[in-house]
């Protein structure tokens, strides 16, 4: 039973992926631009969910999926025209399917009537096409022969039966083909197919080959169980079966076509093909009965296929439960899709070998934690070795260097396991945009780019909420309605551009809209009205723009479903900064606004430079450091008695004394006696940090300060150094803020320069356009 529940889990996992595939496909579906591959992919996804659901006896789910699938089938046969209404209904159906799956997963019954509305809506489309009111009937019989392959995803075998039910010409009825007496002018082939036991391991599926043979003519398939061991010795991953196929084919079917069937497995099996009439089997077939019993493992599952020609014609609806075994892990939903592209009848081979495994996230997290602790331990050892007399323990030191190297590589590799493309978040956005557009009555086009940018899973997960808020905000506040846009000479549909890119060890995500921009006068008056700003204070444009991040701020007078409760952007900013990220806004009136998020790639480990100021030590993220230098007195200049600037790399950079900022006693005040670390923030502005000393580079494990305390200005997080003491990890952009506003001000992220809005992030590779 444990086994079965494991399969169930696999089924739910895979169904979740399939639902996502279907949803992504549905969202790309629009009247007039129908990509048949998409439509097929959606069909297959729904179909696979249905098939697996049948295996586990989720009858509600199967019934519903069937309705869904029927409509999709109509779409791909061009019987049902694609309309916005249809897409909406299908998306809703996808949601219902997802709910049904969730109920099945919980083991609860979905509330009665969950599916009624949607089923009714789906049937209306069928009605329109005249494709029979009498659903549930089998989908229209115009299924092409090679569709069989497309459908033969994970849950394949029931399909054969369904296919049999649909086929105009019923498959050859079982029972020995009259020996030697080939009807008409057909040629009789005898094919002995003895795959190696390891065939399945390479992802091949003999069923497909048998089916392909069947397509060449009337085939009689005999399965041999002679190699089948006793249940105790049976290895679930191995294939013990072999087959003899007697094929009565049209003379036009040549040897080459039969060879083609086995083209991809020729090395993994023993095939003999002969055109003479031979005794049908070389090895006497054993009784199939005992083999049917074993635990749900793969090889026996092949058997129904082998016996295919039996006249199993399940009554419609074709929800004949496939062998439950068919879900056994190794098959990937993607395979089906890939195979579909393979097309033709001959190339009917098993899908590409998958080199991926599913791993429980907890295991990876444990691994990451362990690596973190290892990094600390390694730093500790290094710290102690530093005290050894130099020159004496050369080998030990070399060994340690090697260890450091390996630790770094280990860390990077472990981190890359958790890395995920941001597309998993971006792909949710089209839907959001669609809904928001519908609610606000605006026309919105979402353009995304750089969705393959990879970032740690924890970061990806935490991006959903902020991005949702930001996109809603852009549509609700940023974009104008279509009429207003036309009046000001913009295209009716507004554009929201979502992009991601790696920049200097961080991920930068931008949400750009071409709307009206931030209405500064309104923002300011609202802020004054709410007491967030003193009346009469002179704020720069950027400062006004940044007021929208203040808690409780909202310019909308009426609370809408979308936004206006004033819990939007401040939550976004807090979420982002709790991830060690920053957010900035750039706006130009009438042209639009741009929100720029910058986040660390991982939340676990960081390459840092340990510096000391007074008795305190701090860690500067390596990605922020440009260089460190000891300035000569001549390099330093006072700027209107307010601050010092230093000439570095051809530009004047403001000096910031860390000890003044943080109030640290006993530190070096004179920059010429200490060191200046030239740092750069994400937006490219530079700063010279005056510190006492640079102690060395080190990987540090990021520890939360907020878990037990709270966030501090200028501090990104904390870490534990080799001696067990805590050091704060500095937030360079935050330091810059503090030094601008004075440390008392916990000010927002304001921007120094306003990069042009005219060039919204074009980097990030392929773009993807869609209209919603």
């Amino acid at each position: 039973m444990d086994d079965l529940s494991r399969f169930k889990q696999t089924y739910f996992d895979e169904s979740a992926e399939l639902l996502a595939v279907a949803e992504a496909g549905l969202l790309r579906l629009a009247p007039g631009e129908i990509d048949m591959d998409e439509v097929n992919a959606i069909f297959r996804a729904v179909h696979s969910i249905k098939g697996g659901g049948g295996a586990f006896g989720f009858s509600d789910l199967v019934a519903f999926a069937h309705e869904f699938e029927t409509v999709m089938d109509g779409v791909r046969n061009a019987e049902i025209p694609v309309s916005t209404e249809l897409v909406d209904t299908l998306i809703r159906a996808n949601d219902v399917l997802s709910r049904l799956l969730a109920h099945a997963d919980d083991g609860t019954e979905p509330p009665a009537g969950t599916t009624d509305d949607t089923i009714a809506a789906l049937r209306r489309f069928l009605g329109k096409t005249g494709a029979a009111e009498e659903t549930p009937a089998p989908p229209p019989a115009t299924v092409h022969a090679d569709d069989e392959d497309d459908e033969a995803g994970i849950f394949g075998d029931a399909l054969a039966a369904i296919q049999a039910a649909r086929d105009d010409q019923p498959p050859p009825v079982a029972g020995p083909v009259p020996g030697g007496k080939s009807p008409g002018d057909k040629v009789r082939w005898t094919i002995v197919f003895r795959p190696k036991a390891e065939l399945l391991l390479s992802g091949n599926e003999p069923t497909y080959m048998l089916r392909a043979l069947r397509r060449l003519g009337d085939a009689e398939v005999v399965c041999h169980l002679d190699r089948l061991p006793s249940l105790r010795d049976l290895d679930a991953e191995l294939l013990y079966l072999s087959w003899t196929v007697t094929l009565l084919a049209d003379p036009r079917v040549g040897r080459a076509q039969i060879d083609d069937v086995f083209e991809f497995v020729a090395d993994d099996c023993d095939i003999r093909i002969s055109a003479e009439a031979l005794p049908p089997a070389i090895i006497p077939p054993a009784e199939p009965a005992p083999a049917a019993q074993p635990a749900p493992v793969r090889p026996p599952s092949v058997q129904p296929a082998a016996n295919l020609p039996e006249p199993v014609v399940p009554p419609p609806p074709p929800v004949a439960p496939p062998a439950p075994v068919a879900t056994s892990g190794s098959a990937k939903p993607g395979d089906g899709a890939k195979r579909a592209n393979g097309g033709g009848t001959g190339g009917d081979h098993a899908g590409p070998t998958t080199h991926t495994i599913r791993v429980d996230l907890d295991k990876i997290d444990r691994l990451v934690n362990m690596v973190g602790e290892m990094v600390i331990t390694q730093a500790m050892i290094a710290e102690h070795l530093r005290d050894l007399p130099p020159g004496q323990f050369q080998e030990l030191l070399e060994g340690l260097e090697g260890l450091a190297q390996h630790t770094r590589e280990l860390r990077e590799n472990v981190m890359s396991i958790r890395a995920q493309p941001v597309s998993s978040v971006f792909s949710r956005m089209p839907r959001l945009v669609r809904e928001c557009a519908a609610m606000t009555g605006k026309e919105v086009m979402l353009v995304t780019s750089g969705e393959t940018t990879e970032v740690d899973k924890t970061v990806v997960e935490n991006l959903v909420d902020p991005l949702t808020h930001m996109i809603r905000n852009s549509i609700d506040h940023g974009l104008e309605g279509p009429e207003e846009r036309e009046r000001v000479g913009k295209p009716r549909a507004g554009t929201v551009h979502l992009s991601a890119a790696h920049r200097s060890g961080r991920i930068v995500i931008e949400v750009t809209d071409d709307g009206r921009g931030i209405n500064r006068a309104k923002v300011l008056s609202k802020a004054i009205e709410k007491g967030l700003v003193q009346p009469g204070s002179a704020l720069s444009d950027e400062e006004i723009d940044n007021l929208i991040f203040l808690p409780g701020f909202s310019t909308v007078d009426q609370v809408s479903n979308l936004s206006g409760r004033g819990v939007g952007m401040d939550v976004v900013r807090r979420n982002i900064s709790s991830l060690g990220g920053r957010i900035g806004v750039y706006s130009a009136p009438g042209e639009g606004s741009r929100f720029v998020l910058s986040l660390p790639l991982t939340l676990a480990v960081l390459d840092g430079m340990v510096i000391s100021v007074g008795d305190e030590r701090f860690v500067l993220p390596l990605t922020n450091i440009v260089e460190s230098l000891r300035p000569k007195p001549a390099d330093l200049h006072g700027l209107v008695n307010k601050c010092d600037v230093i000439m570095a790399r051809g530009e004047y950079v403001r000096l910031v004394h860390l000890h003044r900022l943080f109030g640290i006693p006993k530190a070096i005040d004179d920059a010429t006696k200490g060191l200046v670390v030239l740092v750069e923030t994400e937006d490219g502005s530079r700063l010279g940090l005056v510190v006492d000393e640079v102690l060395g580079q080190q990987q540090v494990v990021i520890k939360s300060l907020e878990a037990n305390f709270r966030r501090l200005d200028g501090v990104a997080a904390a870490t534990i150094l080799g001696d067990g003491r805590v050091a704060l990890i500095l937030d360079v952009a935050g330091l810059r803020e503090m030094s601008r506003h004075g440390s008392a001000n916990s000010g927002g992220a304001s921007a120094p320069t306003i990069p042009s809005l005219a060039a919204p992030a074009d980097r990030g590779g392929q773009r993807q356009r869609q209209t919603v």
Partner: protein
Amino acid sequence: MSSSTAIAPVTSRTDLQPAGGIANGSEEQYVTFTVGSEEYGVNILAVREIRGWTPESRLPNLPDYVRGVVNLRGIIIPIFDLRARFGGGPTQVTKRHVVVVMQVGERTRGILVDAISDILAIGHEAIKPPPDIDSGLVDAEYLSGLYTAENRMVTLLNVGKLFAGEHVDQDAVPRAMLEPT
């Protein structure tokens, strides 16, 4: 503990005998400690451990009663200086000072005190309400009551409220930073 020296004689750990025996239904146990000449108590259930002083890392731009942060077996906890909190200026720490590590809600934090003095079982009825102090003098919010042990007065603290102001603005953050380690 009735000594009135500026820094009370440090009590060694072996003095930690439950003075009032095992608490019965109406009694609760309190850990008491000294800061200067005053004795304070906190509910023993809030106390996670008592550790010797280890050097802290200071945090910038915070009131002087936020002593800094230390590493408690891989997690980072803030240390509050109780003397400074009550307006007595920062404690000049020695190796004999003690940190009481407490669990306050979801957060773990330490308070720096001079010495642990006792564990008392105190019945509810024995706790006297704090006198009506002009709120300008003493912020009575965090005082949960007064108790007389022999002839000393023990001020019982409500640890939940003691540092409540510390994170008021941040507690609204819907999601605390993920702690990856």
